[in-house]
């Protein structure tokens, strides 16, 4: 059986005046249809660039996908020319972005922008498309959708703009929706609304969702699998319970430890990750996380650890010392 999306050895580079930025380094994984995958990492870890690589939206120059395959239902998207790729975007794979204000065009009405997307990919008359646009806005929970089609983006609140973006993303019923930090700019109460909405839509429409975020909290309750990325590589991947309950990579542990929890006892110190992420212009020889890692030894500094299966495909980790760390970390 072919997976919905299979990425093999993806490498994306930016060729800048200062040198080559190694933004995505040998990323491989697959996604099944209907699955919710969480991609977690800090800014600059390559999570957004890897998503843009899938969509082939990397600005070129300076960016270039230098290696790898992106198989969508068995077809390598990297072989497609721009014309065919344009058909894939929106219809097969749709993407919603972090900042709903900059991704909606301020001089066109919301309705016009959704209708445009609909008519581009479907054989629809203006009237049909407008009706469908109204249905989509109702679907994402915007009250009085019919009248709001004629509003401009600035007349919408942040949460409503993000809903409109989701409506646009859903317009052609894509098989995969890539959501790039869709709730980061929103308040927690609005974030809860959007998460709830996306979960509901996923159940109703059965599409796969890739949810990119820096917040391990948001994906805990919705994702089935998580990819944790650091310095352009996946360093831990697995079923959501394995990632949160049987954490093996010291970086993932650090990320989880940095989050205060509502059920913490008072006075507990946050386990922060010391130091800063590495410079993608000059990645170290060995493990990219070694400089900030409490468990590093000479081996870590000399050689980059490969991803190894520790619980079949349900949990893989890139760390030389995961077995020892499993012994030390007795939180399970």
């Amino acid at each position, binding site marked *: 059986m072919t997976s919905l999306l299979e990425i093999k050895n993806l490498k994306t580079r930016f060729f800048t005046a200062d040198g080559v930025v190694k933004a995505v380094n040998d990323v491989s994984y697959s996604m099944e249809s209907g699955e919710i995958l969480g991609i977690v990492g800090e800014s600059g870890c390559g999570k957004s660039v890897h998503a843009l690589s899938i969509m082939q939206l990397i600005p070129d120059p300076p960016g270039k996908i230098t290696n790898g395959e992106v198989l969508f239902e068995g077809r390598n998207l990297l072989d497609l020319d721009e014309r065919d790729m344009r058909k894939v975007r929106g219809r097969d794979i749709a993407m919603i972005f972090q900042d709903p204000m900059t991704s909606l065009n301020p001089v066109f009405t919301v309705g016009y922008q959704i209708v445009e997307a609909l008519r581009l990919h479907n054989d629809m008359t203006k009237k049909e498309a407008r009706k469908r646009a109204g249905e989509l806005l109702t679907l994402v929970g915007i009250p009085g959708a019919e009248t709001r089609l004629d509003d401009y983006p600035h007349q919408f609140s942040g949460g*409503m703009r993000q809903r409109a973006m989701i409506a646009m993303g859903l317009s052609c019923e894509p098989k995969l929706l890539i959501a790039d930090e869709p709730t980061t700019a929103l308040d927690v109460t609005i*974030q*809860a*609304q959007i998460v709830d909405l996306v979960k509901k839509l996923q159940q109703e429409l059965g599409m796969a969702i890739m949810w990119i975020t820096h917040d*391990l909290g948001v994906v805990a309750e919705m994702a089935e699998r998580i990819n944790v990325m650091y310095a352009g590589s996946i360093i831990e991947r697995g079923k959501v319970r394995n990632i949160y309950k049987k954490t093996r990579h010291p970086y993932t542990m650090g990320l*989880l430890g*940095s989050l205060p929890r509502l059920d*913490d006892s008072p006075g507990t*110190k946050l386990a922060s990750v010391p130091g800063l992420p590495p410079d993608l212009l000059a990645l170290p020889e060995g493990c990219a996380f070694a400089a900030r890692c409490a468990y590093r030894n000479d081996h870590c500094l000399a050689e980059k650890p490969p991803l190894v299966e520790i619980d079949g495909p349900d949990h893989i980790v890139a760390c030389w010392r995961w077995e020892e760390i499993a012994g030390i970390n007795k939180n399970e």
Partner: protein
Amino acid sequence: MNEKQTPLVEVRHLKKYFPITGGFLQRKVGEVKAVDDVSFQVFHGETLGLVGETGCGKTTVGRTMLRLYEPTDGKIIFDGTDLTSLGEEALRNNRKRMQMIFQDPYASLNPRMTVGSIVGAPLDVHTRMSGKEKYDRIQDLLDIVGLNPDFVNRYPHEFSGGQRQRIGIARALALEPDLIVCDEPISSLDVSIQAQVVNLLEELQKKIGLTYVFIAHDLSMVRHISNRIAVMYLGKIMELADRDEIYLNSLHPYTQALMSAVPIPDPDLALERHRIILDGDIPSPKNPPKGCNFNTRCPIAKERCFVEEPAYREVKENHWAACHFVE
């Protein structure tokens, strides 16, 4: 916390309205009630958390407390002196004792000044230190916040977000203030860096005995750092209590909803809990709803809530709330 303590700051019935001007002559056509009758106390050595969604007036409270904004009405009593009655000179003398850390570490540091001159700026304004004394003090300050003292001659763009926020903290510490208002100091930072900065703030509080007003929209971080928490909505305080009291026995429906919206980084707990999802958005503060501010989104709103504004009262000892249905 000691009950009999005198508060370091007492805010009484603070109001801050911003005028809305319009038309050809830019006449005042309305006002935004950013802060509308807010009262609270901050005790020596404690951290008071101020939480709420975007536009609830939390930052305006912080700024008005230091008189960076002129209050429309109300009193701010800082260590026995009413700041609202002070003239410019007297205010400047008091300002030494209160500092602020800003949200955006990119916008709050002058890109054309070196780190040394940024951190030393308050010393220039308020003290008469010699060059050597100042240099030593700046080195000390950088060391306290965990930056290499050799960085004095570098410029802000050479630093990451977390390091810049440390520079902002060093600047706030320069005059040994009693009170620091932290206005969302960590919300623009990465998760692992957030924890570094929060740990630093906590260490400094222990070491120097600082008092913080910690403004944030992230309830879990506020709970971590605060002794008491005030929850704001549309310019008013909805609930104020000890952090554990707020967490375990929150009374106001808004606090309960806000708390349940915080994502839990644990897949099992996340499934178990009951989520209260609020409908809609915060109403515009230009035109707040009649009666209770929260009535448009409140799951338990009754007729009374649309006519009568609930009083902000002490429901239990040290637990304040503004809701008709709180016993």
